[in-house]
């Protein structure tokens, strides 16, 4: 029993880190502008394919490929933000939903055209495969690695968010956009910046996820549901909320799949819906 609990917590945590890395940008940009971005999963999917191509076709090693995907997708996302998103800041939620579903569909179609619909995989470095022995137990090394990357990113993001000038400006704008603008904070510029970093992180998460889930173009829509759940449950614009929600849902989903093989897929939705029915603005969100 104890073994199973540890396995669930461990695997759930690794899953949660992926959810967190991908979702955090979505949460902050939604908190900043209230922009419903259903194409966020497409940036994660595109990031995954960039890692795949860099490693399999260009012979780039794993870590540089991850850095590359963060930078390239982050930069490309700015083009999309300026071309499409910026036109719809003041539009209705419905129009934002439609535009971003449209972008996601076009992305899926494009990637299916070039890469085919079948799942693809990469070869991570030897030292990240296999098992890691810790106190009479073994853990899959790659998952340990994912948790470590997640922890490091949390530390960096926390520092950036809570201790730097830009972080303070973002928090101010999430709290009260008009007030922030009236004291001279350029919220549009801030949004572009967070959008780029958030999309880059999504791409990084997509790259890290290949080894765990495999990669297909439909990643953009299938996992989008989980990212949206994390953001909604955590509360818009909250770093802490996104982390707590990611861990909660990641562990609940893993636990469900371990304990009730048939009903596993069900549990993450049930937990998320229950939380949202009680706290519609999410755990750390503000109405």
């Amino acid at each position, binding site marked *: 029993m104890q073994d199973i609990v540890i396995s669930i917590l461990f695997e759930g945590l690794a899953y949660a880190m992926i959810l967190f890395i991908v979702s955090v940008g979505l949460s902050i940009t939604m908190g900043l502008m209230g922009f419903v971005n259903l194409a966020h999963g497409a940036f994660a999917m595109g990031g995954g394919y960039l890692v795949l191509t860099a490693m399999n076709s260009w012979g780039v090693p794993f870590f540089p490929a991850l850095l590359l995907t963060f930078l390239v997708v982050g930069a490309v996302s700015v083009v999309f933000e300026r071309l499409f998103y910026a036109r719809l800041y003041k539009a209705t939620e419905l129009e934002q939903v439609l535009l971003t*579903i449209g972008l996601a569909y*076009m992305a899926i179609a494009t990637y299916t055209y070039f890469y085919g619909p079948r799942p693809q995989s990469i070869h991570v470095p030897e030292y990240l495969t296999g098992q890691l022995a810790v106190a009479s137990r073994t853990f899959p090394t790659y998952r340990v690695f994912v948790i470590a990357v997640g922890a490091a990113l949390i530390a960096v993001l926390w520092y950036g968010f809570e201790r730097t000038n830009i972080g303070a400006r973002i928090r101010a704008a999430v709290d009260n956009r008009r007030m922030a603008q009236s004291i001279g904070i350029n919220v549009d510029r801030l949004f572009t910046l967070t959008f780029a970093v958030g999309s880059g992180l999504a791409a990084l998460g997509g790259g890290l996820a290949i080894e765990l889930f495999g990669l297909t173009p439909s990643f953009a829509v299938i996992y989008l549901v989980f990212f949206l759940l994390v953001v909604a449950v955590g509360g818009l614009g909250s770093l802490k909320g996104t982390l707590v929600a990611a861990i909660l849902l990641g562990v609940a989903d893993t636990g469900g799949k371990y304990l009730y093989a048939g009903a596993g897929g069900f549990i993450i939705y049930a937990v998320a819906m229950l939380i949202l029915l009680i706290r519609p603005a999410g755990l750390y969100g503000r109405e």
Partner: protein
Amino acid sequence: MAASDAIAAAAPAPAARAQATAFLATRHRLRPWEALPWLLAIAAFFIFPDRMLFGSQVLVMVLFALSLDLILGFAGIVSLGHAAFFGLGAYTAALITLRLNWQEPISGLFAAAAVAAVAGAASGWLLLRYRGLTLLVLTLATTIMLQEVGNLMRDFTGGYDGLPGLTYTPLLGLFDYDLFGHTYYLYALAVLFVLFLVVRTIVHSPFGQTLAGIRENVARMHAVGSPVHLRLVTVYTISAAIAGVAGALFTQTNTYVTLGVFDFDNSAGVMVMLILGGAGRLYGAFVGAVIYMVLQDNLSKASPQYWQFAVGLMLVLTVLFARRGLLGLLQDAGRLLTSGRKP
């Protein structure tokens, strides 16, 4: 009649008041051009006699989009899970036939409407107090949960393999089904016509006016004492029932159903149809569904990716350049022509 009072009160001059009154008094009347879609539908029956199975599918989607128009276009409820009710209706029609041996199709529609309405009332009561991202996520999650339940009970529902080979007794005991779907087409057209009249009556009623008020300004509707939540749940229930009928028609004309009806793509697809045609204008559902289905039929044959790309492109273009849909564009063009040189 809070809305009409407000409009009348806002118009100070007697002339403007008379104009507003005249508008409200006549806007529900049938106009000659409203016969056009039905004449075209009947014409299609004679022009494409061998494509009537496809034709019935189009009519089913028109009905589905019409049900979405009721909540999205008129009441302003943005849901990513309308396929839930379509799916419930589809499975009700299939399960009563297969498990209860009930093969009469029209009563099957009623059963589907009832099941979908109950689900609509329950989920509406629970979910419609929320808005924004929370509502989007909750409607999306409900639909996926229904799909998961269907998969869990796969002995009963057939799971992702679906329930094939459904058979029905002749329509009204008189008309049997032919290979080309002629009976199905006329059956679907009749159901669509009846339900269209229902929807048209609803949106022009005082109740429909309340919905428009809620869509435009919730705070003000609360302020004038309108029971907002009850109104929203009511329209959500009606919309769910109609979507359920559309789902049941889908099952009956296909004689086949799978859990795919609960897919996100189905919820998104019906939204695309409605937006493409124009939401909140009744006939947008007709224009959008026909164009969507015909394009899908042609492009999917070439390659599913082309079709998916085209859907995405249509969405992006509609949002950026034709926010009121194709009918909105048509209206603007018409105004441009009648009013002369106005830009």
